[in-house]
């Protein structure tokens, strides 16, 4: 695996350095929120960064929501925000 590759967020390319989490790659690319809350529709992205708070839930390649801060990005991952 090359040390630099891309994933997409809602079809838009985002650069990744190997070993980065999806949450880190999104945050670094200036995508700071990728989810809205159920009740208030508030934007959410990284908060705790270590898998505690579940704010950064994201859907990758159509899978159910996972914590973006714990999930290593892989080449070609397709992230969809809600």
């Amino acid at each position: 695996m090359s040390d630099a590759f891309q994933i997409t967020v809602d079809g838009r390319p985002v650069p990744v350095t190997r070993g980065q989490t999806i949450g880190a790659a999104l945050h670094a690319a200036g995508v700071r929120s990728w989810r809205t809350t159920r009740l208030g529709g508030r934007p959410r992205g990284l908060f705790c960064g270590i898998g505690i708070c579940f704010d950064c839930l994201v859907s990758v390649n159509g899978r159910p929501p996972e914590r973006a801060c714990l999930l290593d990005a892989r080449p070609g991952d397709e992230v969809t925000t809600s």
Partner: protein
Amino acid sequence: MSGQPGSDPVTCDVVVVGGGPAGVAGALTAARRGLRVVLLDSGARLGGQYFRHPAVAVRPGTAGFDRFVRQARALDRQARVLLRHQVWAVSRDDDLVVHCLAPGGGAVTVRCRGLLIATGAHDRALPFPGWDLPGVLTAGGAQALLKGDGVVAGRRIVVAGTGPFLLPVGAGLAGAGARVLGVFEAGGGLGLARHPLPALARAGEAAGYALALARHRVPYRTRRAVVAAHGERELEAVTVARLDRDWNVLATRRIACDTLAVGYGFVPQIDLGVQLGCDTRADVDGSPVLAVDGAQRTSVEGVWAAGEPTGVGGWRLAELEGRIAGLAIAAHAAPDAPAAGRVTEALIRRRGRLRAFGRALQEAYPVRPGWRGWLRDDTLVCRCEEVPLGRIREALRLGATDARSVKLLARPGMGWCQGRVCGYAVARLAGEPPGPPRRPVVQPVSLGTLAEPPHPLSWKDLP
């Protein structure tokens, strides 16, 4: 050791949960004494929070890192290290049974005679208006981005909260090229003067960070806190307040910034111990931690704990407690083995000194009650269930007298994070210290996964 070589379930001697300094030292110590050890960690690499490091080889300047890497490499040869495994429960039949989710979501169980809980701690957050805006991160979250991913959390960053951890966070961000507009310590900054000896012992480290902050012209101000965050869809500015000694607001000013890194100390992760019925005690700050004896043994047979779950004290203490636990577990497994390798008086004395230092730091940086005055009725306390302060006040008016009844009436702590983030605040708002967490399932597990028979770890899975 029971079971036959092949695919029969194996009962290993020790399962260590957590791959930070305590877990790695404990696992390696036990493995070196001939025990079959399995270490489980949810992360992609060993290190925990303090020794977090990127996948692409970069040598971080973290004190003690080279030594940790040597231990981790040795452990890889002498034990089974299962990364990206999330432990969600521990139960007991004849053995202890550790239930976890493998990468991809499959259920795996590991049977063992001994369990070492080395699950570390996470940041303690306090709520304030706007704290759920994107761009507001915990101090540990900003540090994890920097250490693990090589990502600087923002361009114009404010660091705030309480405790010595704010110094390396501010220095690290400034050193990585961010404009750090200030490190705002809510405490008075005089606390350690009452403990001159341990303070001296670590003065070098703190002075190093203070120098780094000065070199980057980062102001460090005490009795200051971020009491509100502002922005439409993302953070655009914070309100920094000057505080009195109880953290009541005296005066405020606004600072434009894109990122806030905020943390008020740490919450030890003790869920697995509580699940098993281990006794807890109140730490210096009132937070529940696992009670252990001189050999790091909990009140439950076969269960040891080391590092932050037994009391917040930093990586040096965590590593030493891990070693002591590893020695104690080996001695327990083979009581007739020669005395060499037993827990020595020297180790115990060193642990005592490090614990005293940890206690002194916690006493020096307490959370003072005035933070409750920073909140408005519409300020979210629970981010998951979106419960504002007003609803918690309503529950208290309706007669809730403790955090548990507040939770039942207003639902704070009932969402995804199960109260890990808001637990401290909800307990204090209800007028009590935080109690031991009751989480029968520590990680989210799908019903589909529960319906599948779990894969029991067998001989062929072991080194």
